């Protein structure tokens, strides 16, 4: 059976696309991937999603998105895709042995946390190295921690970790944060937070678990050691586009290229929305907006094709 709309990914973009497509009677099928709910599942309070004046927990918000998509008849498949063929219509997407065919495809596979890729980091993952403060902060009560990064997610992680840790040192490559002013100020005002500016982590130290990080000052080239019990990495994200490398036009950073002002990709009938496209805004609300656009773009094309 050929679906009218197949959606890949279950963050704000994918689920919003599903809500719109379902309400347009397109009976969308959404393959949610094992990272169900996307990056918001790793956050706590979301304070900037409109409509929630007191904030809402990320996982709660995504559960609400999901329920709304299901309410209008979205069929959700709880698996990961294993391969795709976008060379002709209907497009083909495999989940193991199961084949899904669709007239239009909306890709909203999002982005995943980037790691530093320095010695010791991989070996000590789960032993003091983490990219999820909300998951692992609990294990660092009264410990000293390093947070690497300078954007909003680094600020959020650092703030959250001060609830547990005795001290949080932010290590940042530049002399100022990229984060929004309100979040940066909140962190800088926190007495438990220290910042090491213009520095990068070049090695994670420790045999059984993290005992420190080796820092390199980018301006002076001077190296030093910072004793910490854990390191949380928040240096940004890479788009999840490995399946589409040979199928769609991607930019240098691996993001899917879309036609300006639309969600159309280089293949007619394939649309993309959310962080898999967006290396600029990367917000839940912009992703949701693009998901809506993708569903409307798909609906219009199906009408034109008279499918």
């Amino acid at each position, binding site marked *: 059976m050929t679906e009218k709309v197949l959606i890949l990914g279950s963050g704000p973009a994918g689920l919003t696309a599903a809500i719109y497509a379902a309400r347009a009677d397109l009976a969308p099928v959404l393959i949610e991937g094992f*990272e169900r709910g996307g990056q918001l599942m790793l956050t706590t309070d979301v304070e900037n999603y409109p409509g929630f004046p007191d904030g809402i927990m990320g996982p709660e918000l995504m559960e609400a998105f999901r329920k709304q998509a299901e309410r209008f008849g979205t069929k959700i498949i709880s*698996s990961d895709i294993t391969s795709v063929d976008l060379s002709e219509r209907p497009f083909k997407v495999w989940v193991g042995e199961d084949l899904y065919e669709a007239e239009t495809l909306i890709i909203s596979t999002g982005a995943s946390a980037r790691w530093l890729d320095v010695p010791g980091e991989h070996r000590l993952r789960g032993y003091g190295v983490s990219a999820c403060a909300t*998951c692992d902060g*609990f294990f*660092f009560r009264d410990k000293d921690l390093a947070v690497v990064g300078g954007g909003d997610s680094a600020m959020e992680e650092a703030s959250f970790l001060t609830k547990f840790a005795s001290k949080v040192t932010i290590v940042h490559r530049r002399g100022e944060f990229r984060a929004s002013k309100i979040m940066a100020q909140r962190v800088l005002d926190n007495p438990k937070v220290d910042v090491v500016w213009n520095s990068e982590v070049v090695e994670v130290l420790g045999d059984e678990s993290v005992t420190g990080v080796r820092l390199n000052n980018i301006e002076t080239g001077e190296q030093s050691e910072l004793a910490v019990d854990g390191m949380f990495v928040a240096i940004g994200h890479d788009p999840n586009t490995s399946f589409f490398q040979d199928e769609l036009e991607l930019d240098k950073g691996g993001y899917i290229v879309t036609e300006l002002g639309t969600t159309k990709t280089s293949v007619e009938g394939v649309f993309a929305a959310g962080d898999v496209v967006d290396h600029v805004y990367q917000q839940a609300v912009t992703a949701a907006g693009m998901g809506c656009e993708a569903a409307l773009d798909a609906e219009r094309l199906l009408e034109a094709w008279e499918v």
Partner: protein
Amino acid sequence: MGKNTTEATDATFAELVGESTPTLVDFWAEWCGPCKMMEGPLEEIAGEQSGKLNVLKLNVDENQQTAMQYGVMSIPTMIVFKDGQEMKRLVGARSRTQLEAELASFVA
């Protein structure tokens, strides 16, 4: 709690992992998003491998002693035990397919 998995506590842990049947323990907590992602896959694997693999869930919030004893510092962490010995440790959420591949040698 799922119907195919068993809840372990600090008090029951040693006895439950002491079995000769391989036992996968999922260290989790309510506030951990990626732990929630693993609920479905673990439940399904537990159902399909019934008799070959026991699947336990240990809430680290309520059972800190066991979590500390095994040096769990990140969740989800999944540890395979056999006769009380740690055989394999998996840190972080992963897809069902990946998890099955990593458990294959224990359920052969």
